[in-house]
């Protein structure tokens, strides 16, 4: 029930081919278990080949100049495959702050490096759990002469370990600002994470040299939060859709009591309910991404997408395990990789409860 343009479908399909051949779920599982690692040049190869790294970077900075609608479509494929590349973290979350910023001179070198796939960015907004939208009060940016430094701590940073530089929100004497800080100037700490397919960590900055992207940036920060929710929702719906397919495939193949289990109403209706949720959440996710692409205010649409996609991904990954029965909760089966990813993504960039509250506020209540 997709209403994508043909071009977008073609891009999505090319990305799907690449991911399916490069990161089949067995390999992702081995990588998650530390039995194999992603070649260092995989991302720059993908950047050169499919233009993924610079997908939404304007052509003047070496990117593809695609819209956020295309980015959403590509993120669905990454969500579907759990491919361990920094598509969400760098090409989406780490890149959109540069699009929001108007300081072309400042952003040029970073965007060019990102588009080439020779650097990756990580978005570092959060200063702790249960604060959404993220606070900036724990991170201070100070200007001295022409140069800025940042001090403070950020956490829940996605793909923290591999980032080349960080986009950091900080408080300044004139409201919130957005800065770029090099990885070499921060102290990184890895976190234990429920999601085995994407590392997460925190960074500590002590007078780290910083390049300002935007000052007086409260409105931009709000916009980045909305975009982050929209983008992660696109990834989530891709994951949920993959899980729907996984459960249906198993339900068509597994035999118990002399029958294909998908012929039992209990199993059939679990699958149908997941379909109902997936199709609704897909609509919400694509609506938000399209509105973002059109430059519309996405405050409400982003919350709707994040709620719907978080809930369906959580529900679907649990239902999938139920459909699989015993085999579904073994370590060897990939079902739990998605179950874990779902619980991780649901908590990032606003939980469903937080977004519901935000929705009412956004609607004026």
């Amino acid at each position: 029930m997709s209403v994508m343009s043909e071009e977008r479908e073609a891009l999505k399909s090319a990305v799907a081919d690449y991911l399916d051949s490069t990161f089949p779920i067995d390999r992702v599982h081995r990588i998650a278990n530390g039995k194999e690692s992603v070649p260092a040049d995989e991302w720059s190869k993908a950047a050169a080949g499919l233009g993924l790294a610079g997908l939404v970077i304007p052509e003047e900075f070496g990117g593809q100049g695609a819209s956020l609608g295309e980015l959403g479509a590509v993120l669905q494929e990454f969500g579907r495959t759990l491919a361990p590349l920094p598509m969400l973290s760098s090409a989406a979350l780490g890149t959109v702050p540069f699009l929001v910023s108007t300081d072309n001179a400042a952003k040029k070198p970073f965007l060019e490096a990102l588009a080439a796939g020779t650097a990756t960015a990580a978005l570092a907004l959060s200063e702790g759990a249960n604060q959404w939208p993220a606070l900036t009060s724990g991170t201070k940016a100070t200007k001295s002469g022409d140069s800025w430094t940042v001090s403070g701590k950020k956490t829940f940073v996605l793909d923290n370990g591999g980032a080349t530089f960080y986009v950091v929100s900080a408080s300044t004497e004139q409201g919130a600002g957005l800065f770029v800080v090099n990885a070499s100037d921060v102290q990184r700490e890895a976190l234990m994470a429920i999601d085995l397919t994407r590392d997460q960590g925190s960074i500590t900055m002590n007078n780290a040299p910083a390049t300002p992207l935007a000052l007086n940036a409260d409105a931009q920060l709000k916009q980045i939060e909305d975009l982050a929710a929209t983008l992660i929702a696109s990834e989530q719906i891709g994951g949920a859709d993959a899980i729907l397919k996984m459960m249906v495939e198993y339900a068509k193949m597994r035999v118990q009591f002399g029958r294909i289990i998908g012929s039992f109403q209990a199993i059939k209706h679990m699958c149908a309910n997941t379909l109902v949720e997936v199709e609704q959440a897909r609509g919400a996710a694509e609506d938000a991404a399209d509105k973002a692409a059109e430059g519309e205010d996405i405050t409400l649409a982003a919350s709707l997408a994040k709620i719907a996609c978080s809930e369906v991904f959580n529900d679907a990954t649990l239902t999938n395990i139920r459909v699989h029965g015993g085999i579904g909760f073994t370590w060897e089966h990939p079902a739990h990789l998605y179950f874990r990813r779902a619980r991780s993504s649901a908590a990032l960039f606003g939980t469903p409860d937080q977004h519901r509250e935000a929705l009412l506020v956004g609607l004026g209540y």
Partner: protein
Amino acid sequence: MTTTTQTPAELEEFRLRARDWFAKNAKRIDAVGDDGSEEGENEDFLAIARKFQNQLFDDGLAGLSWPKEYGGQSMTMNHQRIFNEEASGYIMPSSPFMVTLGMCAPTLLQYGTETQRKRHIGPMLRGDEVWCQLFSEPGAGSDVAGLSTKAVQDGDEWVINGQKVWTSGAHFASFGLIVTRTNPDVPKHKGITMFIVDMKAPGVTVRPLRQMSGASGFNEVFFDNVRVPAANLVGEVEQGWMAAIGTLMNERVSIGAGGGGLGRGSGTPQFDRIVELATRVGKMNDSATRQQIASIWTKERTLAILGDRMRSSLKSGKAPGPEGSIAKLAGSELGKLVADLGMELLAESGQAWTKDDEESMRWATTVLGSPGGAIAGGTPEIMRNILGERTLGLPKEPQLDRDMPFKDIKAN
């Protein structure tokens, strides 16, 4: 459906024409929740609806995409879409014609004889003929093909005996599309024949069926030796099941697409209604209530997006997908959520109220209407079967009755 191309200018001109027509002939929706669909289907309302439909027809705006030779306009789906867009925001008193135009007429167009089409489509479009659909029976609800109303040939006529149920509009319909069993010796789907039946014919008894909410839009219809001329046969003898499936799919598309203009617009009427109530009882600051209210908004918005996507999809020529069933399931979930939260917020006054408290009365109607709303037009379980089997391709259950002669099947 014709597929002649049209220029943007032509479409724009049509849009202005439609806009103008609505401004002159229709009433704006202004009250919260008032989309014209709750006015019931009594004789008064029928008169209003008929006048409206007459005008629409006379001004060349009825049956936009239907062939000219039968009274339509031979325009395109784009015209229909534009018409629907212009219609949103106006009260469309079309509900008495939904079954006629959304289900019966398309079936006649596809399966009827030329004589039948010439005779009926025009009056249907003009609102002069109201039709009803006679499918469900007391013993055949979810299992429509299990019907047992009999038709037996007698010379140039067929004689119908049996009972139908859940027939909307039977009390004011002139004609009905009826499916009957004409051969009990073959499997159940194979012995079914469809007819046009004159609802005023001798032997037809219509009895209103009162629902638990007190409303009675549905009827029971009894057939006691009702004679139907052979010319009223729709399609071939014993080929009625395919035609019936077609009618039911038209129903789903029709309900899903907003029934030829009865679309609910892009608002969030349930959300607005619950906010009003929560504000009145002082619960708009209660976070538990807020979470639920926000959920109502998300479900309502999601349904609206689903509708938009379905319309774009139909517009772009794709076959209708599972949207109808999805929307029906999501819609009844929304209905339950609204009814439950309404009752919780009203507390004692949701279950007893003074005569002048119309608000509580309306909520009670909502609560009492919600179980039926989930069942009418197909239970959630049937919807899930359809989605599981047709959309996801999961195997059917072992069907014990599929290849058995109808007369040998276990029945109620």
